[in-house]
């Protein structure tokens, strides 16, 4: 049986993620857990989260999940969502700065208070709502997703990925930012597939079938 662990480290609404996974894979075993053994046994892992990166990193360390995640992305398909994407990178500038997992090279920066669109209108932060995604790679996780589809975002920080070839999708919010990254076994998105209606569910469905390559 296809099994997926949703890592529970106390950051945000995990119920929606697990319910959405159950919705797309009614036969799969979906477990919301912080038990390293359960996570290690699962076929695939979802790493969700909303909130602040420093608190998230502190919780991951407290639960000894940081090293576990660094190891398991070498072995099995891994989906990072929102904060779960940001945490994969080297460091963030939130609340004075913090180190993150360092699995992918890059930083996590704030949108800033003076962000404006092309016509000079001030843009609100958080970036909250449905924005268009520009796909940068042909990837199994994008099956059934048309370029320019809209997904639900809610975030004030964004990833600056150092390796351009890992960028799987970008979005524009007063300038282009990295909205999805892909690496062997790793796929991570800044938006919330579990809150992005049919197309978001499609991405979760793709993940449940992805072999990590």
């Amino acid at each position, binding site marked *: 049986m296809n099994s997926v662990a949703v890592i529970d480290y106390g950051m945000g609404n995990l119920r929606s993620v697990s319910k959405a996974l159950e*919705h797309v894979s009614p036969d799969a075993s979906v477990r919301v857990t912080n038990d390293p053994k359960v996570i290690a046994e699962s076929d695939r892992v979802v790493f969700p989260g*909303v909130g602040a990166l420093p608190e998230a990193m502190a919780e991951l360390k407290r639960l000894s999940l940081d090293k576990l995640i660094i190891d398991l992305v070498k072995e099995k398909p891994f989906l990072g969502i929102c904060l779960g994407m940001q945490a994969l990178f080297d460091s963030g500038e939130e609340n004075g700065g913090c180190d993150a997992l360092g699995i992918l090279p890059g930083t996590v920066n704030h949108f800033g208070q003076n962000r404006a669109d092309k016509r000079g209108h001030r843009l609100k932060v*958080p970036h909250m*709502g449905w*924005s268009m995604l520009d796909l940068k790679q042909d990837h199994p996780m994008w099956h059934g997703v048309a370029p320019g589809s809209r997904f639900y*975002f809610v975030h004030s920080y964004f990833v600056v990925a150092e390796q351009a070839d890992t960028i799987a999708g970008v979005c524009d919010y007063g300038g282009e930012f990295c909205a999805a990254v892909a690496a062997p076994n790793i796929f991570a998105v800044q938006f919330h597939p579990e809150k992005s*209606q049919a197309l978001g569910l499609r991405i979760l469905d793709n993940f449940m079938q992805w072999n990590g390559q």
Partner: protein
Amino acid sequence: MALAKRIIPCLDVDNGRVVKGVQFVDIRDAGDPVEVARRYDAQGADELVFLDITASHEGRDTIVHVVEQVSSEIFIPLTVGGGIRAVDDVGRMLKAGADKVGINTAAIIDPDLVRRAADKYGAQCIVVAVDARCVSAEGELPRWQIYTHGGRKETGIDVIDWVQRMEQYGAGEILLTSMDRDGTKDGFDLELTRSVSDSVGIPVIASGGVGSLPHLVDGVTRGHADAVLAASIFHYGEYSVGEAKQFMAAAGIEVRL
């Protein structure tokens, strides 16, 4: 192309049932929050707001079950407001499956609640709901104050000062209702909406007064709202959310179609 303006149907929930007459003729149980949510989701609603108006203390937990049920089946963002008094209430709603929690009166009584809730759960899930009334005399520069108790009780707090303070405290969004316009179908108080939206750096949802589709357009183009909320025009089947979006798109507003 950029961020779409959001269209948000709002549902009043009393003891676990949708009230204020949602009238979809072809829905079996218009009082069932899941059925109503499913309908709006199918129409293309960008988010849903559930406002718990349960008066009795014993009925309070019913909204938790509503949120659990809806979030198990409907995969769009869900905001829940009404009766939120403590940080634990926020946590309970998020755990049940809400994405954002609206705080209204409790923020007036204890403004620091907003800071504590945002520190614990992140600004992105804290919506400060503001009920405003115009208090300036004709000919004066317009001023608005915060009202509570369904617009009956004045607080003496200036709306612009308040929303800026709430932003500093960590609110991630403002849900702004004009109590002068609420239920009138005369359209949003555009001057209020624009004044609030231009004075904060966080998104503002305009609410109160929508009676027609041009009102939604005005809320965005003239009111500078980031999202528009409406209840009766959708509940009574006058317009579907899809029709509202088509109308807004035709007026040059970016929406998710």
